[in-house]
């Protein structure tokens, strides 16, 4: 199991500090949540971890590897996957095609094999399909397998987005507001999926989420960001009792 350590990460856009000396440690096998008001830098932090941004200073380590300057596609090959807040799916493709496409990096057969489509190519495609089906079963997407993503309800599209991240068979899953805009029943489903992911698939989950009820319920550890700085961290109980956090959320008296 691999630990992800962000140490003293600072991210600057022009004169604006999106992140200031952020220290975050993601322990393997647990659910770590990152919360904070709007513009606190939560998504920026995820962007740094997944390689979309590179911190201006500071380091990001994943086990023995230095990810500070790694690109997104390098990161996706070492077992870190991300589900985006704004769905990044091909709306004109079916759910199944979206998920199969997400596994393109596993398609290591040559163009020659692809043309005659037997032996290696057929075997690899079948393996990919089998894995995708496992994810479909897990995320309960069977009724939508052949449906075009663009025609599905928002809640289901969100589920497909999480499924797409899962088809990369990650060890570490970054979820950016997977429950935004969902009704209670859909949220409950996603919570169940996240818990099952941790306990049955042994996946480390990093969750950015605004629904504090959910965060307090399922997180093992929470980091609170405000104006790009970590203002509190710990178990849900510790965070809830932290005066700085209360101030950031409710304001001063």
């Amino acid at each position, binding site marked *: 199991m691999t630990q992800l350590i962000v140490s003293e990460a600072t991210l600057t856009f022009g004169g604006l500090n999106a992140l200031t000396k952020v220290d975050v440690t993601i322990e393997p096998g647990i659910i770590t949540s990152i919360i904070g008001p709007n513009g606190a830098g939560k998504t920026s932090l995820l962007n740094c971890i997944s390689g979309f941004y590179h911190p201006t200073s500071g380091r990001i380590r994943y086990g023995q590897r230095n990810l500070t300057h790694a690109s997104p596609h390098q990161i996706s090959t070492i077992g870190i996957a991300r589900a985006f807040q704004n769905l990044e799916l091909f709306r004109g493709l079916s759910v199944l095609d979206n998920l199969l496409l997400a596994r393109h990096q596993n398609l290591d057969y040559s163009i020659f094999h692809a043309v005659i489509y037997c032996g290696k190519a057929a075997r690899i495609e079948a393996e990919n399909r089998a894995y995708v*089906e496992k994810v479909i*079963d897990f995320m309960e997407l*069977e*009724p939508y397998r*052949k449906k075009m993503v663009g025609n599905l309800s928002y809640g289901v599209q969100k589920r497909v987005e999480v499924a797409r991240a899962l088809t990369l068979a990650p060890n570490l899953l970054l979820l950016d507001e997977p429950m935004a805009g969902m009704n209670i*029943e859909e949220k*409950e489903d996603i919570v*169940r999926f996240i818990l099952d992911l941790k306990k*049955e698939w042994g996946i480390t989950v990093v969750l950015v989420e605004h629904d504090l009820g959910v965060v307090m319920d399922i997180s093992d550890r929470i980091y609170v960001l405000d104006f790009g700085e970590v203002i509190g961290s710990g178990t849900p109980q510790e965070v809830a009792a932290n005066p700085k956090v209360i101030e950031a959320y409710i304001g001063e008296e």
Partner: protein
Amino acid sequence: MENTDHLLQFTIPQLLRWRVATSGDKVALREKDFGCWNSYTWNEYFALVRKTGLGLREIGLAREDKIAIISDNIPEALFIAIGAQAVGGISSAIYQTSLPDEIGGILDYLNVTVVFCNDQEQVDKVVEVRDRLPQVKKVIYEDPRGMRDYRDDDWFMFIGDLYKLGEELHQREKDLFQTLVDQGKPDDVCHLCLTSGTTGLPKGAMLTHRNYISMGLHLTEVDPLEETDEYVSFLPFAWIGEQMNSFGVAMATGIAVNFPESVETAMEDLKEIGPHFMFGAPRIYETIRSQIWLKMDESYWLNRKFYAYFMKVGERAAGYRMSGKKMPAGLQVLAWLGKQIIFRPLVNQIGLLRLRRAYTGGAALGPELFTFYQALGVNLKQIYGQTEIVGIAYMHRDGDVRPDTVGKPLPGTECRISEEGEILSRSASVTPGYYKLPDKTAELLEGGWLHSGDAGYIDDHGHLVVIDRISDVMHNQGGEMFSPMFLENRLKFSPYIKEAVIFGDKMAFVAALINVDPIVVGKWAEDRGISFSTYMDLSAQPEVAELIKGEVAKINRNAEKDHFRICRFAILYKLLDMDDGELTKTGKIRRKFVREKYNDLYEALYDDNVTEKRVEAFYRYQDGQTATVDTTIRFYTMEDCPWPTYSN
């Protein structure tokens, strides 16, 4: 046709063994899992039943012990049921939609010792009432997902471990299973089938091996099935309508039973299998028709023109086909053309192209719906029966489909109408009685006949006509009789009306509470630019009320008798639902309960001074949370139905 009477001497497990001997390598079951159809041959089926049966014996299931199944339709449910029967146990099944309290009550009543659940959802419900169930030795589950917290508790067992136990026992005592199967007698009770119970707790009808097999054989005497035929199992296993097919018909004929991937995908999977026969409650056929209408509505104009024209042709042709008369040559050609141009592709779209026969039962179906399906070329027929006679006892014959009747008795079934007008039947499929309820049994089987509780008569063609439950028939203030179910069905034939409840017992006139169909009316509103948010909002739209008023007026114009006319109605703000206790598990209205729950509305329906009323709508969500919303309900009086003069 070969004589199959010798099969009546078998028990269900013995019949399974006989199938293995005659066609062991043929596919018996198929299940869609991870996107693939996986099949089980009769050999594999039998081996799994053996493992399950012996496994159950190892965990202490003795002869005549009961096992309960709370499961979606999966092959394992059959392995468990028949496995239990093979070692002398008695199976039973509980609706997956049941609440924990109900499950506790049923498990207690049936003295169940082993429970089978397909997933965590069902296991959780049993756990909730665990304290009340000291006699339950084991809970077996099929899907290990989410069961991690139960793993250390040996009250629970994964089905794979049960197979292992069974296989070990088989290795130790090779002949044991065969001996146990041989000990079964065809007249032993093999299954306790819960009757839907429109009133009070369900009763467990004891059904024997012979009950099931005899039903399967007699049904297929009328409508033969080939061994290569396919059947899709999507009805709840707790309903006799599913068991009669998966125990009775499948065993008696050797057809393959296909299990859908999940409840939500059943209709998609049906398309992939293309079954040769199908059975369903009227609701399923209503849903399919709505789908067809929606599809046609969204189609391009040429298609719609063809559809409209050939539908008329089809309806005329259906008239001839249903009555078995010979069609004029011109019509025959046109009907053939319509079939090729539009109906075959259309029926193929919904997966019914290979269908030779579709049966509907459980409740009455509008006559127009028969004509609709027959016009499409789908041979839809009515059946009639009760749980206590293994589902089907009366059925239409091909070429003799009369929409207002339920057909003729199956071979081996006798029918009689009592002096009170009650339908009585007698056959080899009649239950020996209700479990632990000798009084009810005596009532049910008084004089050696099965008392259906339905009022009916036999018409000039020898067909049985069912009017309504004897207890449900109503009389208005003037003493004139009417059947609420009959009128509700009339209303429900409108595509815009999903559900309706008729009132009027001892009142001056007939009134109705109506549920609009969320999909069809939703689309109707969208097409007209009427905006709405929730179902409640949609129901309250004045345009929707006008639409429904038009539909009611149409029905009133066609009413056979004046007192059948619906004089006042209101549109209900929520769909009637099983979870709220308004419908039974098979979708019938719990009349008394609905009448009491909506007493406010009922009173306003019979008070002509009230045109609208504020009510508190009470919701219970699936997770048990509740909410109350204020809403205004309007009441509409029909113009063509003057306020009766004898009203107080």
